[in-house]
C-alpha cells in the first residue's frame, strides 16, 4: 500500500513542470550571495556551507503549497479516508516522494553551487553528506506544514513561518558539520522528524 501511494506521489511530482523549481531556486539563491556580500573568494568559501543550507531550506519550502492542498481540495484525501487507508501512510509516502523530488536534484546541483561559491572539494563532500542526512528532516517538516496550511489562504507564506523555526536544529547541526558528532546529531534530527512527521501531518489532515 505504502509503495502504491509513494509511486503515485512520485509520478505526479515528476510529471509536474514545477519539479525543476526547487533546484533552480537553490542555485539561484546560492548565486545571489556573491552579489550581496561581494565576490571575495575567501569570504565566500567561508560562509558557503551556511549559504547552501539556507538555500536548501528555502528550496524545500517552495513546493509546500502543492504538496497536500490540491489533494484536500479535489477530494483525493476523502477518497483515501473512505477506503480506510491510514493518513499516516499517505503522509509518509508524501514525505518520501517530496524528498526525492527536491533533495535529490538539489544534491545533484550541489557541485554547481559549490563551484560558484568557491567551495573546496573536501568541504563540498562533507556538505553533501550533511545535506543527505539533513534534508529528510526538511522534507518531513515541509509536509507537516503543508498539512497544517492545506486549504488556508496564503498557505505558502504561512508554511514558511511554521517551518523556519522548527528547521533551526537542522540548520545548526548542518552548518556545524565539521564539529565532531554533528553528523550524528543531524541524522538524529532527521530520524526524529521522520518519525513524528507522518503522525503530525496526518493529525492535521484528519476530519474533526
Amino acid at each position, binding site marked *: *500500500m505504502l509503495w502504491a501511494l509513494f509511486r*503515485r506521489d512520485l509520478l*505526479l511530482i515528476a*510529471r509536474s513542470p514545477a519539479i525543476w523549481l526547487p533546484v533552480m531556486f537553490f542555485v539561484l539563491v546560492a548565486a545571489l550571495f556573491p552579489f550581496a556580500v561581494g565576490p571575495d573568494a575567501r569570504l565566500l568559501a567561508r560562509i558557503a556551507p551556511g549559504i547552501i543550507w539556507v538555500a536548501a531550506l528555502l528550496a524545500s519550502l517552495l513546493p509546500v503549497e502543492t504538496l497536500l492542498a490540491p489533494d484536500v481540495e*479535489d*477530494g483525493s484525501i476523502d*477518497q483515501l479516508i473512505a*477506503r480506510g487507508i491510514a493518513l499516516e501512510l499517505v503522509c509518509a509516502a508524501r514525505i518520501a516522494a517530496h524528498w526525492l523530488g527536491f533533495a535529490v536534484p538539489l544534491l545533484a546541483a550541489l557541485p554547481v553551487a559549490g563551484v560558484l561559491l568557491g567551495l573546496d572539494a573536501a568541504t563540498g563532500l562533507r556538505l553533501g553528506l550533511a545535506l543527505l542526512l539533513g534534508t529528510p528532516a526538511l522534507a518531513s517538516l515541509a509536509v507537516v506544514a503543508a498539512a497544517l496550511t492545506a486549504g488556508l489562504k496564503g498557505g505558502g507564506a504561512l508554511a514558511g513561518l511554521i517551518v523556519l523555526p522548527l528547521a533551526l536544529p537542522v540548520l545548526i547541526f548542518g552548518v556545524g558539520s565539521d564539529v565532531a558528532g554533528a553528523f550524528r546529531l543531524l541524522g538524529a534530527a532527521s530520524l526524529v522528524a521522520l518519525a513524528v512527521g507522518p503522525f503530525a501531518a496526518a493529525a492535521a489532515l484528519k*476530519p474533526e
Partner: protein
Amino acid sequence: MLFEGVSARVAPGGALLLVGPNGTGKSSLLRLLAGLLPAAAGSVAFAGRRAFAGHEVALKPRQSLGAELSHWARLDGGLARLPAALEAMNLAALVDVPCRMLSSGQKRRAAIARVIAAGAELWLLDEPTAGLDTASAGLLARAMAAHRAAGGLVVAAVHGDIGLDGAGSLRLG
C-alpha cells in the same frame, strides 16, 4: 449540532435516500457514513467495504482518465473490474483523455465508475445525478440496480428521483 435522533437500517440489496432541503446535513450524514466526519454520539454499524462519491471528483487534471481510475482501482484491488465499470458509465473511449479536458458530467461519471470498480458492498453517493444528462442518469440507475441485485447497498443524498426502486427514505430537517 447538525442532526440528532436519526436512525435507519438498510438490508442487503436495499437502498436509502437521504432527502430534505439544502443545509439540513444530507452531505454531512453521508460523509459521516463514509468515515469522513466523526459522530459526536451514536454509531454506524456496517461490516463491509464502502465506496464514496462526493462533490469533488478527485481526478488530477494532468493525468489521463484511465491512469487515474486505474490508480484507485489498484488501491481497491479491483483493477480487473475497471473495464466493465468504464463500459457501464460509457467512458471506455475516453481512457486516454487527460482529465482536465473532461466535462463536469464526464468527471461525475468517472467518479461513479470508480465506485463501481471498487467492488464495495456499500455505495455512498452524494447527489450522483447532479450534472448528468438523462442518458447518463439511466446508466447510473442501471448500475445501482445491478449492484443491489448482487446484494449491495446504496445510500444516496438526493434532491429528486434518481431511479432507485423500492428505496427507503430518510427525511432530514
